[in-house]
């Protein structure tokens, strides 16, 4: 087990290092980053100033080395547009985004667990097909379109929820639904498939044979086993939800990391963008690491492979 964890941890560190290089190199995609930031038609004086402020006049290896060294020490640099420390700027926003991601995940599970279980119990019936329909619509609907429909219904027509902002819990309702609904189909399919497999297992037949009520068989015996792969998927989905928060937070002007990322990109405030790309990647790496280790702990067969 220890050997597996060490190996897996080593891989995570290596991936994080590669991602940090990519996040740093992102700026160089345009050829000359100073020109890209100053904008087309900028005066040479301005371009030179940008080059000096960002340190683009130094060799690229030195730039990367300096940047990584500072990031590891916790100094995330200065935001050009917001004129504050990137670290403090990001920390408060990260809480908002984490909340959003957790609420979305909760919403996704609340609709996908019952629907997945129902679809499995009544396999190939109209209930199964209805659940499949919900999943298919969820996958086909662009989440920003769904978000606008929610705004139209809940804010404009019924005046129940605020359109945008992030002050109260009401501000989180629509973003969580819009983001979570998109993650639900994957869970539903996984739960349905898992439940169908588990329900045909011998111990379920035994449980039924000894006369346990259906609800007890389904929830105590079957669901408990079918839910294990869902935990692994939840870790991965949480990472995707953090990434997907860019679109949703921007629509609802929810003051989180995704909205900040969008603003920083629009304002060409790339020190902020780089750190957010790196941060979201590292969170994803940590989540998959945790999920892999948990799986290896639950299932000894994985450790050997």
């Amino acid at each position: 087990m220890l050997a597996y964890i060490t190996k897996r941890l080593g891989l995570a560190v290596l991936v994080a290092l590669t991602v940090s290089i990519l996040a740093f190199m992102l700026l160089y995609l345009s050829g000359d980053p100073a020109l890209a930031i100053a904008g087309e038609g900028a005066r040479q004086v301005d371009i030179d100033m940008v080059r000096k402020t960002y340190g683009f006049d130094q060799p690229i290896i030195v730039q990367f080395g300096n940047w990584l060294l500072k990031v590891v020490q916790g100094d995330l640099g200065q935001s050009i547009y917001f004129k504050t420390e990137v670290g403090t700027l990001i920390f408060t926003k990260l809480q908002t985004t984490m909340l959003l991601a957790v609420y979305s995940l909760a919403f996704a599970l609340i609709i996908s667990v019952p629907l997945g279980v129902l679809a499995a119990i009544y396999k190939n019936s109209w209930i199964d097909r209805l659940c499949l329909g919900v999943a298919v619509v969820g996958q086909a609907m662009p989440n920003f379109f769904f978000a606008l429909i929610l705004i139209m219904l809940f804010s404009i027509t019924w005046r129940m929820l605020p359109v945008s902002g992030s002050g109260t819990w009401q501000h989180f309702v629509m973003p969580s639904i819009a983001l979570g609904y998109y993650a639900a189909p994957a869970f539903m399919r996984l739960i349905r498939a898992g439940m169908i497999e588990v329900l045909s297992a011998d111990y379920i037949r035994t449980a039924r044979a000894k006369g346990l009520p259906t609800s007890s068989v389904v929830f105590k015996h079957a669901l408990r086993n079918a839910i294990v792969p869902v935990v692994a998927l939840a870790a991965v989905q949480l990472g995707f939800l953090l990434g997907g928060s860019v679109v949703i937070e921007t629509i609802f002007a929810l003051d989180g990391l995704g909205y900040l990322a969008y603003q920083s990109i629009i304002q060409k405030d790339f020190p902020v963008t780089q750190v957010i790309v790196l941060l979201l990647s590292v969170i994803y790496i940590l989540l998959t690491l945790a999920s892999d280790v948990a799986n290896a702990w639950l299932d000894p067969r994985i450790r050997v492979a």
Partner: protein
Amino acid sequence: MKKNTALYVGCGLLLFIVFCAIFAPLISPHDPYVQDLTNRTVPPFWYEKGSWVHPLGTDQLGRDYLSRLIYGARISLLIGLSVAVISGLIGTTMGMLAGYFGGRIDMIVSFMVTTRLSLPVILVALATVALVGGSLWVVIMVLGLLKWDRFAVVMRSATQQVRSMEYVSAAQSAGASTLRIMLTEVLPNVLPHLIVIATLEAASAILLEAALSFLGLGVQPPLPSWGLMISEAKSYMFFSFWLIAIPGTALALLIFSINLAGDGLHQLLTPGERA
């Protein structure tokens, strides 16, 4: 259970959209770029103020909405197809190499896939478009270079399965070159998986382009990208929600048809693998 309803419905709907896209100049009632500022935000025909001159109304600049919708199908389909081809080429090559040779190559490919998966796609794509400048081709290239991960993962495991088959060993002992075995023995046998992944990835690329254009960092005006149309109509959503609902529904229908066709193909091409 009726067997391939999904395939027929999906393909039928998809063919209809492809047909509209190909014959856009013939079936569009108006030029999608011509503005008529005296006829702005005319509602579709089912509203009281609507008329059959503009069946789906006009947008905030007086352009015929049906024509823009039809031309928009071209953009979405082009994005889906090109991104699937580019990322498919990259991912399939990587996955087949990893699955066939295993060992160090497999390790490198798996590492690249893990790294790619940890990058937030939307964010990286947004930042790239902001730096390089938005255009249809930039969006296609960015998404094509980002979305190869699922191709690589699936092609890797499919190739691993095929590799241990007897016909591969037979070809090896007959003295066929590795390249020849890859192209004539392995590729045809992993093709069903490839096609299914390609449909899924095309759908996901279309959604991503719409999201990028919606955020203003994708396809640029005046091109009638559906995502862009929704974005431009946002400030009119209070009085003219149909400006958002029409391209949004079109997008959802397109994705729905591709997914349905993909599911149907999955059942048709890889029978017995999953219910």
